[in-house]
């Protein structure tokens, strides 16, 4: 029995080391198509560049957090013209679990007077895996990311985390910044695109499901802002009409968000044509120009930006 236990223990140690070595091989020389439960091959949203930049910035008026709707939907240059400095903390498929994390990590440092929490309801129904991988493969690894990874609990995440930890330490692999043609990173965390892709005008009718875990994380994130006395607004940025109309429970979703704080659904405030969209989910630069102008106007009327200007 003793022999068995010892051998088993030594095999476990050997196997763990072997696992690490093979994960390093998967991350460096094995083609991406051969790595199923591993993803350190670069995202679409300049996440690494954004979080590299934010580490050098202090004190802004406005912080935006959320998914690609956030980093493709809020242009710091437009806000600057209105005298508002901002930083965009969006990341690909950022679900409330990660929104809570990025706000918790950067809000104290950035000391914003206002936070825009951009909500894309679909991401309230996901497990947060994709976004978590995006953050890890952008170099963001700390105890909170590790704790959150255990909460999401997926082997793909652990494999990527393992490689990410080594990569942060030894810089084995340089990651691509974005796969998307025509995208340009704009300082302040924004991704600019003038493109308009053809997309389906008809979609299956469906319902948005909100998972209890994501909703709980979202509420906790908002409560943390409240406890630091930072104002926030919840905003749903517009996406294509056909995409929005495919969700049958939009009113129910609006009621949920309204109950959590000051909330604006710009799918109901603005009615933009398809040419203003990059794809069926994201605005292009033409759309952003209109949307951001309307947003500044709306929030100014509510006194938010007036307060920011007075403070400046």
């Amino acid at each position: 029995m003793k022999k068995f236990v010892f051998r088993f223990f030594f095999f476990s140690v050997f196997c763990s080391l072997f696992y690490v070595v093979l994960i390093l091989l998967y991350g460096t020389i094995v083609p991406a198509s051969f790595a199923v439960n591993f993803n350190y091959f670069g995202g679409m949203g300049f996440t690494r560049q954004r979080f590299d930049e934010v580490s050098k910035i202090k004190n802004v008026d406005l912080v935006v957090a959320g998914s690609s709707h956030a980093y493709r939907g809020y242009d710091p240059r437009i806000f600057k013209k209105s005298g508002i400095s901002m930083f965009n903390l969006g990341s690909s498929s950022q679900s409330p679990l990660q929104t809570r994390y990025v706000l918790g990590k950067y809000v104290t440092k950035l000391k914003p007077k206002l936070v825009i929490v951009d909500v894309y309801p679909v991401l309230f129904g996901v497990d947060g895996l994709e976004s978590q991988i995006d953050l890890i493969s952008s170099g963001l690894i700390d105890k909170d990311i590790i704790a959150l990874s255990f909460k999401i609990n997926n082997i793909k995440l652990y494999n990527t985390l393992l490689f990410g930890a080594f990569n942060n330490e030894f810089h084995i692999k340089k990651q691509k910044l974005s796969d998307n043609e025509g995208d340009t990173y704009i300082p302040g965390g924004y991704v600019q695109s003038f493109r308009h892709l053809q997309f389906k005008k008809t979609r299956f009718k469906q319902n948005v499901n909100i998972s209890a875990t994501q909703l709980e994380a979202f509420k906790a994130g908002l409560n943390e802002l409240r406890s630091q006395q930072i104002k926030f607004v919840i905003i749903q940025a517009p996406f294509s009409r056909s995409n929005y109309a495919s969700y049958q429970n939009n009113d129910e979703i609006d009621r949920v968000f309204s109950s959590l704080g000051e909330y604006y659904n710009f799918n109901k405030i603005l009615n933009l044509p398809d040419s203003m969209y990059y794809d069926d989910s994201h605005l292009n630069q033409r759309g952003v120009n209109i949307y951001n102008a309307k947003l500044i106007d709306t929030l100014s009327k509510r006194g938010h930006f007036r307060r920011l200007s007075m403070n400046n």
Partner: protein
Amino acid sequence: MLFNSLNFAFFLPIIFCLYWLINKNGLKIQNILLLAASYYFYSCWDYRFLFLLIFSTLLDYFTGLKMEDAKSLKLKRFLFWLSVTVNLGFLGVFKYYNFFAESLISSFSHFGITLHASAINVILPVGISFYTFHGLSYVIDIYKGRIKPERNFVDYSLFVSFFPLLVAGPIERATHLLPQIKQKRVFDYSKAIDGCRQILWGLFKKVIIADNCAEYANMVFNHSSNYTGSTLALGALMFTFQIYGDFSGYSDIAIGTAKLFGIDLLRNFAFPYFSRDMAEFWRRWHISLSSWFKDYLYIPLGGSKGNLWMRIRNTFIIFIVSGFWHGANWTFIIWGFLNALFIIPSIVMKTNRNNLEIVAQGRLLPSFKELMQMVSTFSLTVIAWIFFRSASIGQAFQIIGDLFNRSLFTAPHNPPRPVMLLILVVFMAVEWIGREGRYAIENVGLRWPPILRWSFYSIIIVFIGMYMQTGGSDFIYFQF
């Protein structure tokens, strides 16, 4: 609690350590521990069905004792039929009631008669077909005078409920398992290592082969009318590997787990896809069920004695009943019927016992004739599996109809990742190389230096981590 879950990864080492730590305190304590662990394992699915399992155990335990003590043959026979009726009654209610009710309503509706029967909306207790067959074989063996009843209730309960085999077999016999339960176990290092190796290979089969093949098979079978012949063929092929990986993987984990506790379970699979005819296939597929039906149904019906027509009749009966055992659906019955049909030529020509030895034994490659035999047998099993997997007979015929046309020679829609096809090829190669063992990697690397052997096992573990389906899935045979 699934074998491929994190819960089991904690449960097994804890029970293993406790089991061998209390070894000095005696067999009785060890058996009580195993029984408690088994009941806990079962109650993780649904604790309410634990009462059903305990009731079934009590029924067969006391029936066995009373039959032994019965003063008249009449009483013995009464007790025997009581046990058989109650056991099969439970199975009938939980597994077949809705099937019979729906079939009856459907039959009467053809004559314009509308019947109303309320469907019982119950969850099928996991493993009911398996533990019912354990109990039945025990009662039948006592009735036939083959064994004496077990007087120790804990030992008997453990025979029925031993957690590795409780929910999906192998279907054990009292003659094989009970003596092991009653015998003092000594820790055997080689056996424990062998068990770990078999668990590892079983996990690989389930998590990598079955679950990944399931992804494609489900896509095809869930929307079969949308696909061309080549896609349907690939879907059927994927299901063929899925069900093998799933069930033989489960059996390997069960057998390997039992070895950790010093217990040998019956072999359940012997590389069935390398069979040269259907008779050989059925000697190698779900062996514990096939032998159960042979001993308790085929032989009492007359077996291979009697004239040709009787043998053919018995063959059809055993395969149709076996199909029905799998599930309450006509698709399973047709699957059983098809298998009987495929096996009949060898019975008529008396070639059904031609291929008793391992194919190409002692050789690396099969002969051309053997290869052709294996390919044709494999093709027949793929066709039969279409019925097994389809939701209805209509769907099965739709698939077969759409499969055999010109679209069979077009490129399949959305084919699986090339890496998965590569893994499948490597898997079959390892199975082929290891076909003379009890499981494929039993003898792989035994003479290699330890570091090389450990590297081989570690590669399997890395592959599990890299290619497992993150969604996870149940074992197919849990539904039976």
